[in-house]
């Protein structure tokens, strides 16, 4: 396979909650690039290639703390269903970072999730995807982190998950089951573009980390690749080629535009972790790479999920006269909340602004999905997506400090239902409990519920693991290439 150019990926997959950063991490990265450029005399070509790859793999998304964290010094708290997992310091600090790692140590960490001291990483680090990275790519990344990144002698907070998940050795069993430690192998029957797309989607960009549903052991479900999964408060939708459930109805150009800008007017806007992925990483990918991702997704195995219609196929503009701003006090709570908090930008008709800066709500993937998750999350947490010179900003209505207006769970449910009924999927009904669930970071995993049972839980877990290992030994090992 040819040596990778500006490749990319998004660790935002693992960043389960939206980050509240004024400055895009992409900008922070640009600054670090400047710093690295200052050392260019001592930075090898290999390290420069590694820098492009690191932009691609978007290590900074998780390994740089928001709001002014030092580049790659870790400390970003990733709230998983099992508890908060803090990212590590991956600067070449010899005390707190990876300064003492050999290239072999480095490769083992990113491909197998095992630190130099033998401790297992949690799979918040997408090593199951990185396992497929080619040797030259790993070598380039290593060169960059050793030569191009300034060491930061700071220790990030320690991750301490509740018992039994604090027993990291259990990850060995998990890896035995779920880690396919093989390099990406191009499929000679497919085009170079599709192979490139496969490498990006499954490995470098690790789209699967979010978009493939997880089993109750938090591993990606076999045979359900890219068919959609919960990501904390958000939902990473089905991106298989299915024309109803997935992106089969999108044109190649639309997919590329979405990946490049996070915005396809009249169709979809990126929010939450996807907005971060675009902001931090995807916007910097080459057009060839974006085209490869789009081509690969369009050629992926279609998987039909719960959608009755494509996510962007619901709703029409409200007739002007039906907006009835001025009805004599008989507006529902949802209608009043919509008028007072949403209509200024999205307009009473739901059509957004003429210039498209504020999107229409009908025929929009956020309102027409089979789950209301992303609609609720957008209202609660807002949107702050900077791509190039453009910032798309929607204020948060649900957090502790919501300067525009703070809405209760019931208010968010009411306005969500108004939006769904008038502009989106009218078959959905949102309850205050649904909102509370999204507000607290999504439903806890079955594994976490099991873990809450503590000792009995551990015993049960052990039994389950044993059964799974036995099953795992006999299951087919290879994962067929979709499409």
């Amino acid at each position, binding site marked *: 396979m040819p040596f990778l150019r500006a490749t990319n990926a998004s660790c935002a997959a693992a960043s389960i909650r939206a980050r*509240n950063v*004024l400055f895009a991490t992409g900008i922070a990265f640009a600054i670090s690039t400047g710093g690295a450029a200052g050392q260019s005399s001592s930075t090898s070509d290999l390290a420069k290639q590694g820098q492009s790859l690191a932009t691609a793999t978007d290590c900074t998304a998780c390994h740089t703390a928001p709001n002014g964290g030092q580049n790659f010094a870790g400390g970003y708290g990733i709230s998983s269903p099992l508890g908060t997992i803090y990212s590590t310091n991956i600067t070449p600090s010899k005390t707190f970072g990876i300064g003492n790692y050999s290239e072999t140590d480095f490769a083992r960490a990113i491909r197998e999730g095992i630190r130099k001291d033998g401790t297992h990483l949690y799979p918040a680090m997408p090593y199951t995807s990185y396992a497929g990275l080619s040797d030259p790519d790993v070598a380039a990344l290593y060169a960059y982190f050793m030569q191009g990144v300034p060491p930061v002698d700071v220790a990030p907070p320690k991750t301490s998950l509740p018992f039994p998940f604090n027993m990291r050795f259990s990850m060995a069993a998990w890896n035995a089951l779920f880690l396919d430690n093989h390099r990406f192998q191009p499929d000679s029957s497919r085009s170079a573009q599709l192979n490139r797309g496969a490498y990006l989607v499954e490995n470098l960009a690790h789209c699967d980390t979010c978009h493939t549903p997880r089993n109750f052991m938090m591993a990606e479900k076999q045979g359900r690749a890219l068919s959609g999964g919960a990501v904390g408060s958000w939902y990473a939708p089905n991106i298989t080629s299915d024309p109803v459930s997935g992106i089969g109805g999108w044109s190649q150009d639309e997919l590329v535009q979405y990946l490049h800008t996070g915005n396809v007017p009249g169709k979809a806007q990126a929010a939450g972790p996807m907005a971060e992925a675009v902001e931090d990483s995807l916007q910097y990918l080459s057009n060839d790479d974006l085209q490869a991702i789009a081509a690969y997704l369009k050629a992926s195995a279609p998987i039909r999920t719960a959608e009755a219609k494509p996510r962007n196929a619901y709703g029409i503009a409200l007739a002007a006269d039906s907006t009835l*701003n*001025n009805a004599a006090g008989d507006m529902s709570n949802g209608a*009043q*909340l919509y*008028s*007072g*908090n949403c209509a*200024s*930008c999205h307009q009473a008709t739901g059509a957004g*602004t003429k210039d498209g*800066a*504020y999107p229409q709500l009908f025929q929009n993937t956020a309102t027409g999905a089979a789950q209301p998750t992303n609609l609720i999350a957008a209202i609660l947490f*807002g949107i*702050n997506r900077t791509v190039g010179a453009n*910032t798309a*900003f*929607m*204020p*948060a209505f649900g*957090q*502790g*400090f*919501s*300067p*525009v*207006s*703070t809405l209760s769970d019931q208010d968010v449910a009411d306005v969500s239902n108004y939006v769904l009924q008038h502009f989106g999927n009218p078959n959905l009904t949102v309850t205050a409990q649904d909102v509370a669930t999204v507000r607290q970071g999504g439903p806890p995993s079955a594994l976490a519920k099991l873990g809450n049972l503590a000792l009995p839980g551990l015993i049960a877990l052990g039994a389950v693991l044993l059964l799974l290992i036995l099953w795992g030994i006999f299951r087919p090992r290879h994962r067929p290439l979709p499409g």
Partner: protein
Amino acid sequence: MSDQLSADIVVIGSGICGLLTAQRLATQGASILVLEAGPRRERGDIVNSYRNGAYKGSWMNPYPPTAWAPHPRFQPHDNGYLVQTGPAPYPAEYIRMVGGTTWHWAAQAWRVLPNDMQIKTLYGVGRDWPINYDELEPFYYEAEVKIGVSGAPNTGSPRNKPFPMEPVAEVWAMRRFRERLAVGGYDVVSNTTARNSRPYDNRPACCGNNNCQPICPIAAQFDGGVAVEMAEAAGVKIMANCVVYQIEHDAQGRIAAVHYYDPDKNSYRVTGKTFILAANGIESPKLLLLSASDKYPNGLANSSGTVGRNLMDHPSNSLTFDVDEDFWLGRGPQSPTSINTFRDGAFRSEHAAFRLDFTNINQSRPVAEDLIKAGVYGPELQTRLRYGAARQVNVKNVLEVLPNPENRVTLSSQKDALGIPKPQVYYSFDDYTNKGMDASRLEYTHIAQLMGGTNLRYSPERAYANNQHITGTMSMGNDPGDSVVDKFGRTHDHENLFIVSTGVMPTAATCNSTLTALALAMRTAQHMHETT
């Protein structure tokens, strides 16, 4: 008494000054209770009230007064709350509501000029402030960061650090004013405003709702609603519908408690160690006068007899005319641009200084009203409406009046629904003001000429609009004989009573008063933190 009726610090009034003072002190560890006479409402509800209101030209349209905490309202008719007794009206449109009057400001957040603070020394008029500009500068900056201010780099107010934000993108029409008036020597600059030119502090950038007054629907400008959220996030407790009617002192003259009515006139007593009066330049002196006792027969904090006196504002006259190109005012924020070169000069010994403001308020509604009034119907109505909406512009002044003890707030013999005396104002204009107004009119005429103006409509002579910049009524000063508070905002007469308000400004200066009041409030809070 329940626990909640006591706090380290009790604040009366939940406007921008009271809330951000509370927020600062809460961040430093104090327990704080804010008592607000009016109700609490959400932004979306106010937006809906604006759209559903019949009097959209009135900035009070979405803020109907309550029975228990009435405030002045003048459309469709004067509700009689602010009793007028002078030759000139003082129709201040303030809001008694959680968040206060900045719910409907236009976010102009100016610093005074250094000379504004010593006009007695420099020009022989008015009075000097007890502090100078340099003492206030760091607190100006603190306030600017807190509320997110941007503006033109040089309008005569020195600064040690750049604005927190770039100025808001220039409105096309204002660019044309700038370009065409430059020929006549006018320097047209971006206003200094608490309006976001980028996402700031979780609030969005302006998107041109053109509704800064009476309500920004998206909080792109700082307002009372944002102050509420900030204060509560810092742990401040705000209680609505608590109409404070008496401040109680002990034998030593320290403040011991305040008493409030709920809307049903049940009375409650709230104790605290320190008290901050922040109920605006009219309601605060009203409360001090109401709290008269045997020991203080003229009211609290009033040994000087100056409480309520020296009432000031920035009166305005204006010129409306049709410009000779299509401007279509109403694209972008309402108050983007002004001329600041008449704010200082030797002339200040003779006549008032002023700022000139260009409106960017959508003109279609006032134009349509005028056409309907004139009986213009049919296709001609549409044609002229479009013409007026495209061409009609307005320039007005914001003019400094001098402190005059006769202009004052007192207690009326009329009572409100809870039986509390209404505030009463006596107000008049002097020649110093009138001469400044005449000087402004000369500039308007010149400006209209440069803009190819036709259909010139001057505001009536000697009748000036009120800008609700209520200043002077609780003036700060070093001499307890002619001022209410000291240079840190502490009342001369009561060691544990502080006042944060535009009312403590000794002179009105040459710009909108909110940022200066806020900077003074931050300075007061710093002093309280250090000394109490």
